[in-house]
């Protein structure tokens, strides 16, 4: 444990996330095959690929929402294992935003943002509320703090979900198709928040099909298919000169019309 904590000391140029030869099966179905991925501090990565290609599963392995069977994951210097204490330590460094928001419907927006601060970080309520309001302000939804999630639009809910994750002051943010469940006119308000976050230097892994977002902020675009990383390249190369045929086909299908 002390070794892990020492390794987690900030300021070093160790990779933020290191995934080595990751393999995962659902029963006999091989979802992730030999994934190798290194994410440096402050890097913004967009992951795309056809549905069922394992992209969500991969980022869900990073905070152990999914268990992997082979390979290693190291987050901020802390190697992942099956010890729940270790997993919770990693989760405190990793924020996550889900496709379906997963806000707590029985709590107000403000309470949603305070819950983990109070129970995980053991902050006094007043302090938690203050920092929650700061983040709600940043996603421009502070005026809705007293409302319940069910009273907000999809875009507003997703911004609250981002604020809730940021309240924990994570070092990495994982986005699992954050705009896929939104009406088209709400996608922009969520992407704007994400772009702003990217410009502030947050390390981000983002599963999305918003290619405009990828072009604007990504340092690297990763293409996955059938549980493998097929291609990884900076956005200019990825969109203009994709190497593999599978990537070309995918791009022609999503950009073609």
């Amino acid at each position: 444990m002390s070794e892990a904590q020492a390794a987690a000391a900030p300021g070093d140029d160790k990779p933020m996330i290191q995934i080595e030869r990751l393999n995962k099966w659902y029963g006999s179905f091989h979802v992730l095959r030999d994934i190798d991925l290194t994410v440096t501090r402050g890097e913004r990565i967009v992951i795309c690929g056809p549905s069922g290609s394992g992209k969500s599963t991969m980022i869900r392995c990073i905070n152990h929402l999914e268990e992997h069977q082979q390979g290693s994951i190291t987050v901020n210097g802390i190697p992942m294992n099956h010890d729940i204490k270790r997993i919770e330590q990693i989760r405190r460094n990793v924020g996550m935003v889900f496709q379906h928001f997963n806000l707590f419907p029985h709590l107000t927006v403000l309470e949603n943002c305070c819950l983990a601060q109070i129970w995980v970080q053991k902050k006094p309520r007043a302090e938690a509320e203050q920092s929650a309001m700061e983040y709600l302000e940043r996603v421009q939804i502070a005026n809705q703090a007293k409302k319940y999630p069910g009273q907000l639009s999809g875009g507003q809910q997703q911004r609250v979900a981002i604020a809730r994750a940021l309240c924990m002051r994570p070092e990495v943010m994982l986005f699992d198709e954050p705009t896929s469940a939104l009406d088209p006119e709400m996608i922009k308000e969520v992407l704007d928040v994400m772009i702003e976050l990217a410009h502030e230097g947050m390390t981000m892994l983002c599963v999305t099909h918003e290619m405009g977002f990828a072009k604007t902020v990504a340092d690297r675009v990763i293409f996955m298919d059938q549980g493998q990383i097929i291609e990884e390249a900076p956005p200019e190369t990825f969109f203009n000169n994709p190497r593999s045929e599978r990537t070309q086909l995918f791009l022609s299908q999503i950009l073609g019309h």
Partner: protein
Amino acid sequence: MRESTFRTQMIEAREAPDQRRGLSGWLRANLFNGPLNSVVSVAVIGLLAWILWPFLKWAVVDANFLGSTREDCTGSGACWVFISARFESIIYGFYPAAERWRVDIVFALMAALVAWLAIPRLPRKRLVGLFTLVGFPIIAWFLLLGGHFGLPEVPTRAWGGLMLTLTVATVGIVGSLPLGVILALGRRSKMPFVKSVCVIFIEFWRGVPLITVLFMASVMLPLFVPGNVEFDKLLRALIGIMFFWSAYMAEVVRGGLQAIGKGQNEAGQALGLGYWQRMGLIILPQALKLVIPGIVNTFIALFKDTSLVLIIGLFDLLAIIRAGLTDSNWLGFSTEGYVFAALVFWIFCFSMSRYSQYIERRLNTSYRR
């Protein structure tokens, strides 16, 4: 422009809706707003009168309410003197008359605590709730049982009547809900040992009739434990009832847990909340709210089934009324006795039902879409 598409003349104004209020307005709107409805209303009212009138005549019009002995039963209807003459024993059972103030204090305290918890406006719910769950049972135990602080001991075999019914129901309700929640969580656990213990517990207690449980608790259990260890008969019945109903409760709660999407749990995990925090703060508040009707349904069934303790020789409300019927001075008043018992049970069960509906409405508004 086709003529059929557009009207060329204004439609005549419709009659204004009936604005009459008061009884005549209500009757017109709800019972007589058309020929068919009027006929149905008259028929239903007639049917009700036909069925209810003889009962009301018996229970109220021709009944005797005042008096103290059988000689006061002069009317042709019910004689409620039977109830009032035996009222003390219906409430206290065989509890010694000189000590009944102790029961009164416990009743009053319980009524006050329940009222405090039930009325949303009153503050300090957490403190009062904690006292109700921890302090009150201890106080009630010492007061009712006695044997300490100079209070003479009143053994549980002297308890009876409404007091015993309420004791059994309260302990059953307060005990079975938390136990049921734990069992429901255990049954969904990923740990094979915990899971199988909970499954076996639930399936065992759910699979046997409550009468069997009570018989086993009172007749068979003493055969298995060493002779010098004496368990109170009431205590054994209470534990049996609690286990039995907690199995039902567990399945009700599990139904609620299934209904909460797994995204809620994942969101909690991603925020770093531990298992008990996720359950206590996120999953259970939502799940229990969903199954309030099922929980209260179980409470009501439990309340009514307390009368089964009769078969192991405990005299609850119903049993004490039956015992009164065998009193040679009061032979032939069984209808009054059973109607009264039914009324008391109904009042308690109906109150629980109404309160649960009120709670459901109140919790719902908080995040209605």
